């Protein structure tokens, strides 16, 4: 299913799960897609492992390094996606240099061939995206997902809202991924976002690791994104499918 369709159809809180491709094993991706789909996750964010992930905290840095040691590459990720028959909406998240070296046009083409409908590139800012790459992404019907943070001005949130085609990724606090402080401290910020009546749905990420965090996020927005907590949960897993089901059940409890 395309991302935009999911966001239009569903009114229940949406749960998005991030994981790094190639982790914990090089061929974990297809298993994780199937398990997340059957366990009831609403969308997945597939991380492209990178040597220098500046927006990520220690957990995702570590999963990136392991995946790279395992020998993952963007081309291999696309091949693994081709072998998967899952229909869960899929987003790719990575750093711009990986895409630049693969070739932006080639990347977009492969995404659209393998069922990817949204892209998150935290280090490709809106202005450079618009000027140089928007046409290519649009040609391949890829939604470019932009981030906002508690420091983002209202003027800029509106600008980002105008340029968003699927959802806006609201980072719950200043910082990198993987802190466990919960998102209750983001109440004012989430209320502010809610009061702006944006045309684009908002999903919240960062600091979500427990059922109460997910519930809290869903109270103010369309749902929550969980990364580091899931990665920790499967880090030493010998039964990926079982452990994935257990995690989703826990978060939705």
């Amino acid at each position, binding site marked *: 299913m395309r991302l935009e369709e999911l966001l239009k159809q569903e009114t229940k809180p949406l749960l998005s799960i991030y994981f790094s491709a190639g982790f914990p094993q090089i061929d974990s991706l297809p298993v994780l897609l199937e398990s997340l789909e059957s366990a009831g996750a609403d969308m997945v964010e597939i991380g492209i492992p*990178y*040597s*220098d*992930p*500046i*927006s990520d*905290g*220690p957990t995702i*840095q570590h999963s990136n*390094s392991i995946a*790279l040691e395992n020998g993952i*590459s*963007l081309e291999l990720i696309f091949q693994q996606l081709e072998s998967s028959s899952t229909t869960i909406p899929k987003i790719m998240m990575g*750093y*711009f*240099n*990986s*895409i*630049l*070296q*693969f070739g932006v046009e080639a990347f977009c083409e492969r995404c659209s061939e393998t069922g990817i409908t949204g892209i998150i590139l*935290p*280090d*490709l*800012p809106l202005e*450079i995206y618009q000027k140089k790459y928007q046409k290519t992404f649009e040609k391949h019907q890829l939604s470019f997902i*932009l*981030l*906002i*943070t508690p*420091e*983002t*001005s209202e003027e*800029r949130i509106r600008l980002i809202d105008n340029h968003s085609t699927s959802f806006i990724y609201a*980072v719950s606090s*200043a*910082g*990198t991924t993987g802190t466990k402080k919960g998102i209750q401290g983001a109440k004012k910020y989430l209320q502010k976002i809610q009061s702006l009546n944006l045309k684009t749905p908002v999903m919240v990420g960062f600091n979500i690791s427990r059922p109460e965090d997910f519930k809290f996020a869903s109270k103010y927005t369309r749902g929550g994104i969980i990364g580091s907590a899931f990665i920790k949960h499967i880090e030493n897993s010998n039964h990926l499918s079982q452990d994935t089901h257990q995690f989703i059940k826990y978060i939705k409890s």
Partner: protein
Amino acid sequence: MNKEKTSNHIDNEGFYGEFGGAFIPEMLHPNIEELKSSYINIIEAEEFQKEFKELLRNYVGRPTPIYHAKRLSEHYQTQIFLKREDLCHTGAHKINNALGQILLAQKLNKTRIIAETGAGQHGVATATACALMGMKCVVYMGAVDVERQAPNVARMKMLGAEVIPVESGSKTLKDATNEAIRDWITNPRDTHYIIGSVVGPHPYPDLVARLQSVISEEIMSQMPEEPSHIIACVGGGSNAIGAFYHFLDKEQVELIGVEAAGKGIHSNETAATLTLGNTGVLHASMTTLLQTKDGQVIEPHSISAGLDYPGIGPQHAHLHQNKRVKYVSATDDEAVKAAFLLTQKEGIIPALESAHAFAYLEQQKWKSTDRVLINLSGRGDKDLSTYTKYNPY
């Protein structure tokens, strides 16, 4: 010289030709926007210039002298002049930038300073500036570098800085920079990040270049006759941009940047970015970097921790592309030999970084009428243990 006619300087959007820009995560947008919109007004204001120049004169000891190195000149049958940045307070040119940026941070009402460091020279310069201004200072340093640059770690701590060893990635300069960026993402309001070289997102490359351009400004007024060549070592490239800055549009002056070839450019243990790298994004800037075909950053090698960097400032990538500056490289061995020669001929022990610039003297035939200026960017006290272990004679 077959040279395209492109500007040597930055455009309105923070690019040098195709290089530069600010490839920053949204979390850094307000900080970078604040800097971008205010840095030129602040640093060009009369009040700032007065404070900055006074510090450079009375605290750093500027202008640094130009020294005519007669015995080295005789050795190479040419005329060699040294710009003595090694005589700056704290022992290298890095202090020029650290003081300029701390004044800027004060104008922006920041109360906490962070920095990255490789060899520790920029960390020491920043810790010094923070001690001088009574500001809180946190320095990120790769765990490997903390070990191999112990004297500078001790200096930073005595100066009151908190030194945080970085255990991620390869535990060197690149990772220290990543960690400093993560700190800034986490502390966007009270913190200013003092980047130590002409790298990172716009406006840093231009900001640092302007603050280091005092070097070439002084060279212009100090040299009895215009130099025919200016040679500087290049890691990120701040001392080189500083020495080249006012000569970029004077095409009669040949500018030469010397990268670290490590164990040789074909050895896989090298930091010769412009010779071996290609275009990509590193530390939020489009530049030339050492990377795999998948775009993963390759760990460089140089005997000199200050040149041990997989990227290079975007302005250098541009000056390489438009051929205004000639970029060459020198190996670990060549640099150490050049350091011993300078020491024996002139009684000056250069930093390992600066020694790479001197190594280029061996690589070209000089005319007796040439006036070769070398930017002696730092002194070699910190490198004594490497020199004594590595004596090539």
